[in-house]
Every structure is written in structure tokens, then in C-alpha cells.
């Protein structure tokens, strides 16, 4: 049934429909409304047979999830940014143990400097930890992906991160179809664990593995994610047959036919890019956008197939590998090896800087003239940067960079007024 609902609330309702048995979470912006929503559903009795636990840190949250999942309970948690890092040890532990935990990441930048707004740095920091990572483009997809995530996680016995843009999706009211309990039950069977702590059949889980077997364990995790490349589309297809809409899958292609320039991106910004694509197509520009839904496993072949005939690829990403360049771009470049298609990196939206249609249009026009750099920081305030660099050249005691820049910008505001 369609509802005009906050993204977080839609996610909470869909998670509840999956009949989780244990929900544990520690609050952090921008995920707070999701766990509050889940808590309300448990307290009101709408979500039955579910233990809702308030924990004392994110590290505890994922650890509780590990214990719960290992005991055979369908388990859910959510975090973002600093919280994801605080539980980093447990993130690797959960995937290493092969526990099918589903966790929402309300994508948010990581400090310092402290920043509560959206970018993808947090999910990217854990991209190699062995979790499956799915990115939602809309709140509808975010809600749907959680339902798919439980099915995927339990089939593979591997944890899944569902990534949705903090504030932009979590705190936006949108028109979302919340499915019925019957349909979710038809799609998602009860959890059948591959391993479970059970006195009737005791075994030890989590023992040390030495050089003689560690590689094999890691290889099998990689192999599992390779298999996931086939499972994810299958699960999305089944989703469509039960719920009647396209959601999830590996990639979403939009107007790629005949496109000379293709923007590759993840998450909600794809929607903004689509509007730009439509406007530019009206003017005769051959532009398209590919949004990646499954970031891990990374769909190399599918991306290569979709992009190999275009002239240039622009990876528009909300992440930065400091000292290197683009995180997503790097993955895309590897997929395009040998095709001769040039890949540009455009880092945008860091720390929640809005990505506007005028800025995108300008950047694409530069790209069409073959004048786009390999690495671009969209809407970078050159003058501010130059002033800080000058301060550092002039004095060793130049002060903390962030505060300098803030003072600089505040001073500019004064002058403007």
C-alpha cells in the first residue's frame, strides 16, 4: 500500500515485515529514525517475537548481532559513519564467520572534521571487509532492498549492508509502497542457519585458523561473492514477480543507448543525474547514466558490457581515496581495462555538499569538449583553498585547517553582506 512516509520509517516498516527476531542498535545521525521506528513497532506489538536491545556502543550493536545470528536468530542493525568505524573489528568478524546479518548504513561522511551530512566514505571504508554492499537510489528501493537483503544474506550465509544516503533519503518524505505481510512471507522464508550454537549438536565457532587454511577460507568468501553476481539478479527477479516492480539487481541503466558520455554513480544522486540527462538529450547530447546497485560484489562484466561502446565515462562519486583519487572510479577503471574508454573521476557531494543540476550540466559540457581533467572536485572553492595554502607557506604555525577555512568563509559572508 502506498504511503507518504519518511524514508527511515519506510525502511523500519519493511524490516519489520521481514520478521527479524533480534534488533539491536546504537543511535547515530542519520540512522536514528530507523531504529526508533523499529523500536516503536516492537513496543506497540506490531512487530512480534522480536527482541529490541538498546546497546551501549556500535561495537556492542554488531557484537550483539553476531551472538544472536550465531544462535540462529534473524538479526538486524543499523549505523553510519563514525559508528561503522567504531564497529569495524566486528564488521570483519561477522563476515569472516559467515553470519547473515543485515545492516543499514545511513551514508554519512567520516570525520575529522566532524560532519553529519551525506557522502559514501563510510560504506567505502568497509568495502573489502567481505560484506555484500547494495546501494539504494530511492526510498522505495531502500525499503525493497532490505527485504531482498535478508533473502540474499541467508542464502549465501554472508552479511549484507544496505546503503542509503543519509538525510537525503533517510529524512525525506516520499511516496513509498509498503508491501503486505503476506507477500513478504511468500518471498522470504524463515531463517535456516548454516551454523548454529545448539546444545543438541555442539561445535566450536571462531577458533584460530593458521597459515595452512586461512587462504582457503578467504578464497571461499571471494567465491561466494562471485556467485552473488548471479544470485543478486535472481533475487531481484523473484522480487519483481512477487511485488511487481523493478528493485535492486546489479546495475540500473538509463538512456545508455547511443550514449557517448556515460555517468556512473551510486545512490540518490542518480535521480538528479537522470533529470540532467533528459534535459541534455532534448538538446541532442548523447548522454546516459549507469547507477551501481551492487557495489560488492562489483559487477565488472556487466559494467564493461554496458560501457564499452561509449566515448567517455564519468564516475561521479561521493568518496575520495586520499592520495589516490576515486574509489569507485578505480573499480570502474579495472572493469574497463583494455577497452580504451577513458574514465574520468568527479568527486562530488563530500560532507553533504549539494550536487546541483547546474553544476552537473556545466561539468558535462566541459567533458563533451574533452576538457575534463582526470580528477575533478565538483564545485571546489579554489580561492578558499589557495588562501589556506598561502597561510601554510607563510607560517609554520598556520593553525588547524578546518577552522581556518570556516573563519575564512565567515569573513567572506560578512563582506558579502
Amino acid at each position: 500500500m502506498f504511503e507518504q512516509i519518511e524514508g527511515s520509517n519506510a525502511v523500519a516498516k519493511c524490516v519489520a515485515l521481514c520478521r527479524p527476531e533480534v534488533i539491536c542498535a546504537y543511535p547515530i545521525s542519520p540512522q536514528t529514525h530507523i531504529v526508533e521506528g523499529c523500536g516503536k513497532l516492537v513496543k506497540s506489538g506490531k512487530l512480534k517475537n522480536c527482541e529490541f536491545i538498546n546497546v551501549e556502543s556500535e561495537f556492542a550493536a554488531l557484537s550483539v548481532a553476531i551472538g544472536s545470528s550465531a544462535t540462529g536468530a534473524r538479526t538486524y542493525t543499523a549505523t553510519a559513519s563514525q559508528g561503522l568505524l567504531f564497529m569495524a573489528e566486528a564488521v570483519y568478524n561477522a563476515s569472516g564467520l559467515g553470519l547473515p546479518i543485515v545492516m543499514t548504513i545511513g551514508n554519512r561522511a567520516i570525520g575529522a572534521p566532524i560532519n553529519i551530512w551525506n557522502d559514501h566514505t563510510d560504506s567505502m571504508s568497509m568495502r573489502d571487509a567481505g560484506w555484500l554492499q547494495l546501494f539504494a537510489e530511492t526510498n522505495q528501493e531502500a525499503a525493497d532492498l532490505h527485504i531482498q537483503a535478508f533473502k540474499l544474506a541467508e542464502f549465501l550465509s554472508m552479511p549484507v549492508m544496505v546503503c542509503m544516503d543519509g538525510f537525503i533519503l533517510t529524512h525525506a518524505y516520499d511516496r513509498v509502497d509498503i508491501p503486505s505481510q503476506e507477500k513478504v512471507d511468500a518471498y522470504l522464508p524463515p531463517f535456516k542457519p548454516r551454523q548454529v550454537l545448539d546444545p543438541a549438536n555442539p561445535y566450536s565457532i571462531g577458533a584460530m585458523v593458521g597459515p595452512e587454511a586461512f587462504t582457503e577460507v578467504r578464497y571461499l568468501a571471494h567465491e561466494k561473492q562471485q556467485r552473488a553476481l548471479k544470485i543478486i539478479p535472481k533475487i531481484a527477479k523473484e522480487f519483481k514477480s512477487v511485488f511487481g516492480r523493478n528493485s535492486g539487481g546489479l546495475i540500473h541503466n538509463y538512456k545508455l543507448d547511443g550514449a557517448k558520455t556515460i555517468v556512473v554513480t551510486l545512490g540518490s544522486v542518480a535521480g538528479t543525474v537522470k533529470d540532467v540527462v533528459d534535459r541534455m538529450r532534448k538538446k541532442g547530447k548523447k548522454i546516459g547514466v549507469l547507477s551501481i546497485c551492487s557495489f560488492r560484489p562489483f559487477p565488472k562484466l556487466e559494467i564493461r558490457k554496458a560501457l564499452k561502446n561509449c566515448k567517455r565515462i564519468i564516475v561521479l562519486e561521493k568518496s575520495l581515496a586520499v592520495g589516490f583519487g576515486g574509489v569507485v572510479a578505480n573499480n570502474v577503471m579495472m572493469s574497463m581495462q583494455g577497452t580504451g574508454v577513458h574514465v574520468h573521476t568527479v568527486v562530488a557531494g563530500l560532507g553533504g555538499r549539494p550536487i546541483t543540476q547546474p553544476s552537473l550540466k556545466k561539468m558535462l559540457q566541459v567533458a563533451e569538449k574533452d576538457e575534463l581533467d582526470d580528477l575533478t572536485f565538483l564545485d571546489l572553492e579554489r580561492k578558499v583553498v589557495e588562501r589556506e595554502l598561502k597561510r601554510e607557506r607563510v607560517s609554520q604555525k598556520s593553525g588547524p585547517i578546518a577552522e581556518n577555512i570556516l573563519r575564512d568563509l565567515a569573513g567572506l559572508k560578512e563582506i558579502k553582506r
Partner: protein
Amino acid sequence: MFQTRIHGRGGQGVVTAAELMSVAAFIEGRHAQAFPSFGSERTGAPVVSYCRINNKEIRTREPILEPDAIIIQDPTLFNSLDVFQGLKFDGYVLINSNKNFDELGIKDAIKKIPNKHACCVPATEIAIKHMGRPMPNAVLLGGFAAMSGLLAFKSVEKAIQSKFSGKIGDGNISAALAAFDIVKKTTVTKEKKGKK
């Protein structure tokens, strides 16, 4: 697509205002997207929220840079920021105030706006009268419906009911209706139902 930007201060229900607007549009079978400009909100700090209304799926997620309408819940904001920035030349302006434009000192800012598209309504006073609380958000929504013709009052009423029950809901609705009537008298509503 119709884009509205709402300005106010933390604690005045600015975020809820955008949500209610989106729910009203939803009730009419349209697509709507409402979101706040996020910040470490404290009571009293300037807050902005946005609402987009469209007849088909809304895909863009950027902030509203060129609003079709601006609702100002707190006129003291005129001294702090340029609330009119980007407003379309024939855009709508609804201000919560019992003063007129001259007294507010914004006569120049709204010079270019068509006569019937700018209006002041004493929403806080109306709210206190009908609800006992100085919460102007739903009240202004009623006024906005009258001024823009974008939403039927019935939809606004249903939206308020979906969020606030009992006496609070009733108070909000009667206050919104009062604002609707006042604004209707001061402006002429064009039948906007057909327009995107």
C-alpha cells in the same frame, strides 16, 4: 513540478510543514518529496525545509534553488538571511506576520512579485487563538492553499488529521481554515489544479 521552500526557526515546525504539504499532495494522488535542510538543529536556529510536488515521479534530490513559492514562518529571519534567493519571478510569498510589507521592511524585495502572489497572514496569532500554542506551520499551509490554489483545503485538512489526532488536530484544522479564509479574501486564487 512545483517547488516550495519554507523558512523558519527550530521549534516552529518547519520540517513538519513540508511533510504535511507532501502528505496533502499525496492525498490528491500526486507525487511529492519533502525534506529538511539538515543541520545541528536547536530551538531558535534558522531552519529550511523543502517540498516538491509533481504529477510524476520526482527523481532529483538537490536542494530547491529556484522555488515557486516561499513560506516564511518567522519574519525575524529577514535580518539573518536572504530568504527570497532564487524565487521565480512570478513566485508566491507567504509570510507569518501581522504587519504589512512596508512595516516588515521588505517592500523592495517583493517589488517584482505579482500583486496577488504575496501575502502576510498572522499565523502565530491565529494558532494561539485556535490551539492555544504559537505553532504556525499547519496554519500557514491553509493560507498557502488559498494563495496558490495548489492544494485543495480538504487535502490539507486530511493531511493534518493524519499527523495530529483529537483536539490538537481539530485546533490545527480550524486555525488553517481561518488562515485560508483570510488569504482568500486578500488574494485571488487561480484554478491551479490542472497546472503541474
